[in-house]
């Protein structure tokens, strides 16, 4: 018995440490909410968890009592009870009341999170972003600012940001766990929702949130990550301005980069744009826009942001993202060409 008690203590402590450390990473976890939407959802989670823990406690008490009190001790036949109307009414009515307590805030929150009236108002100041998902990459268009970027979403903090979501190949789902629940990008229609990024908690998370694709979309579904840079409104405005200042492809800074730019213009520019004011319709944007590639934090959404990984990626994209649409779309590159390309691409920055 003593050994058993010890084991119980150990497992209890283990569970406790797990629970205390169990909130996940601030840039990724739904349990570390960093915005109004995630807060609303976190509150609902807590409410439903409390109600459910209460139910579980009642069941556990009866359960444990049964286990100890009603074990078979002799061969007597217990009284055959048909039921009890009183008990049955109790365990029908109380759950209904508990569910009502949960249902009212659920319905309220569902309508609140679906409210995108601001998007459709005339002269609305609200920031709108068109999200277009492709096989394993994300395209972000700011229609009012007339700029396009990819893979790394840039948003202002402390205001509602509205999203139009659509997929251009198969169904994906747009999810920034720390900031709010997901919304599918359908192939059939445009979905709309909003998120809000809290400045203080964005700082705690390092200013960079992780975004995920949450709907199975093929082999590299697991690797369809994107990042979200949350900036203050002023910094965001200056970012927009510096993006808009790129009217034509940026000049390469070094000789090597100039060489890389030439290779890029010969082999890559057919799919990848390097100017943000992309006038083409979304369906014509075949590959991630690279205007500010040098400012980003990942290569292809998942690899470290350095020249070596960039070269690896261009050398054999299939190895890093199976099923991607880039493989075999361009001639094989020599090591020198890769060096030049990496130099050029890493130099594509709009912010100093």
């Amino acid at each position, binding site marked *: 018995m003593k050994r058993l008690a010890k084991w119980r203590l150990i497992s209890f402590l283990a569970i406790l440490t797990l629970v205390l450390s169990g*909130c*996940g*990473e601030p840039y*990724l*976890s*739904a349990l570390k909410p960093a915005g109004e939407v995630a807060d*609303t*959802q976190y509150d609902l*989670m807590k409410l*439903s968890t409390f109600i*459910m823990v209460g139910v*579980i406690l009642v*069941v556990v008490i009866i359960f444990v009592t*049964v286990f100890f009190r009603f*074990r*078979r001790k002799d061969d*007597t*036949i217990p009284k*055959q*009870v*048909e*039921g*009890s109307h009183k*008990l049955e009414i109790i*365990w*029908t009515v109380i*759950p*209904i009341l508990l*569910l009502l307590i*949960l*249902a009212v805030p*659920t*319905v309220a*929150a*569902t*309508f609140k*999170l*679906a409210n995108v009236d601001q998007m459709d108002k005339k002269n609305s100041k609200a920031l709108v972003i068109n999200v277009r998902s492709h096989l394993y990459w994300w395209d972000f268009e700011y229609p009012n600012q007339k700029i396009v970027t990819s893979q790394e979403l840039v948003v202002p903090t402390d205001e509602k940001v509205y999203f139009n979501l659509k*997929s251009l190949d*198969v169904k994906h*789902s747009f999810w920034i*766990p720390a900031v*709010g*629940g*997901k919304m*599918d990008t*359908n192939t*059939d*229609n445009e*979905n709309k929702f909003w998120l809000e990024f809290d400045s203080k908690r964005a700082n705690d998370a390092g200013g960079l949130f*992780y975004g*995920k694709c*949450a709907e199975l979309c*093929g*082999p590299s*579904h*697991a*690797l369809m*990550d994107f990042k979200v840079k949350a900036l203050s409104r002023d910094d965001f405005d200056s970012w927009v301005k510096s993006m808009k200042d790129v009217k034509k492809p940026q000049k390469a800074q070094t000789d090597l980069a100039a060489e890389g730019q030439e290779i890029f213009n010969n082999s890559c520019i057919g799919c990848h744009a390097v100017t943000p004011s992309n006038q083409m319709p979304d369906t014509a944007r075949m590959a991630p826009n690279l205007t500010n590639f040098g400012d980003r934090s990942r290569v292809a959404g998942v690899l470290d942001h350095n020249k070596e990984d960039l070269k690896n990626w261009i050398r054999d994209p299939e190895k890093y993202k*199976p099923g991607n649409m880039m493989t075999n779309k361009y001639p094989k590159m020599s090591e020198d060409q890769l060096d030049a390309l990496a130099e050029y691409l890493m130099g594509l920055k709009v912010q100093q």
Partner: protein
Amino acid sequence: MSTYAQKKGFGATVWDFLTTVDHKKIAILYLLAGGLFFLVGGLEAVFIRIQLAVPNNDFVSAGAFNEIITMHGTTMIFLAAMPILFGFMNAVMPLQIGARDVAFPFLNALGFWLFFFGGVFLNLSWFMGGAPDAGWTSYASLAIHSKGHGIDFYVLGLQISGLGTLIGGINFLVTIINMRAPGMTYMRMPLFTWTTFVASALILFAFPPLTVGLVLMMFDRMFGSNFFVVANGGNTVIWEHLFWIFGHPEVYILVLPAFGIFSEIFSTFSRKRLFGYSSMVFATVLIGFLGFMVWAHHMFTTGLGPVANAIFAVATMAIGVPTGIKIFNWLFTMWGGSVKFTAPMHWAFAFIPSFIMGGVTGVMLAAAAADYQYHDTYFVVAHFHYVIVGGVVFSIFAGVQYWWPKIFGTMLNETLGKLTFWLFFIGFHMTFFIQHFLGLWGMPRRVFTYLPGQGFDTANMISSIGALFMSLGVIVLLINVVVTSVKNVKVGDDPWGDGRTLEWAIPSPPPFYNFKQLPLVRGLDAFWIEKMEGKKGMTPAEPLGDIHMPNASFLPFVIAFGLFIAAFGALYNGEHSWAIPVIVIGLLVTFGSMLVRSVKDDHGFHIHKEELMDDNDKGVKA
């Protein structure tokens, strides 16, 4: 007829099973085939957990991983859980209502062979260019986009096996409505029979939408139509609706029979009648009804709008009420009882806390606004494994141990049974509890790997170790089956000693005609009532007379086999010139044998009164 022969060679036994229309033998076929697919699906699960044990693992490739998860889900739902439950229904339900067989023995065999060939066809995809890889839900945009023949195998295999399931469901419905013994009113039926009844009704209404969806997808993929091709005016959200209008009731098709099995076990080993029997029946019917009103909660993030989401959220929460009623009724069945913790009772007892975990996360998921966070993450994976493993798989293990003596005439070893339980129980919670947190920490489901540095590493390792324990539990069960079969110690009519329902009133295994004379049922727990009055068996409701039995037939096998052939033709349509002839040949085989069945008179045969009297002296027939 041939079942009368005592010792048979191997070939004769195989032929017997290929042609049998006896519900008890078909039950064994279902258990065998379902058990085999369960092992295949389990192996796939182990591969999944090995791949995910550490970040950036390359045990399997990304494409292969998607095939494995798709086949794991599809196999476990369609080819393992449902057939094994069908096995129990076949083995037990006719005995529980005091019938000599199901209403349509020929159809019963046909249902099995359709399921079997559908399942075999689906699994042949592994050896013929790749398995389906769009998830068991096979959402249309990805399924249409998928290269190779994987999805075609899914679409065709599930149509064939789904047809078998539908036939089985209708057969059970007719059996329960028409073939109850004298005195067996609806409100005296054992709860397992009731849940079989309601689950069969669900099958009747749930499988047609799935079939419609599959047929549309078959036309899109194989015959060039555009139902789901958005560029040509199709719509992929329709597939989601069709799939989930089937998919959600499917959960109850699985879990209601599980509830039935546990109800029998709680009552038997507590030596007490089921607490609140009529409210249990009412709750079962209500769950079945509400099960059709909630499908869109699988689509909260599809963008149906707040009105639809709110309605489906509240409807989903409502299902919590009848389920709660059931939990408390089970607890109070044991309360005041004399509870014996046999191996089946271990599963039943552990089912309560395990299933409650799945139930409460179900209510959490029902809160639509919060579901936007849970949806398509490991939280959902944890939830439905708690429901389906903690509910359905536990009930399968419990049912195997509980009814093994009735089906095979020997008792599975209790100690090994309890060992299986502990290994599986610990492994199950270890694997899936932590996955709730993984989902909340931001891990989407169906990912073939994850990058380090996101806080997922330890939890995934714990989860994978849990899978090892579950595997060990299954291996111990297999050893138990082998040991028990080799020892082959025969048992009597009521080996648990506490049997309450009619199946325990006849020999184990029962003679092929089940009841020599149909029993007179005088109340709920018919056999228990007689035992309590000091009687040895049931009072007959009819004088001893000739019994009319159906003839064995090879036609069900051939009908199903024809569709199996035709499916290969459909699969390669447009690629090979032989495709169309193969379709035609396959369909000719099927419809030809149906024609033979229609024109050939088959009146069955009679067991004569005199032979039955002889049986009295000889005792149990195997």
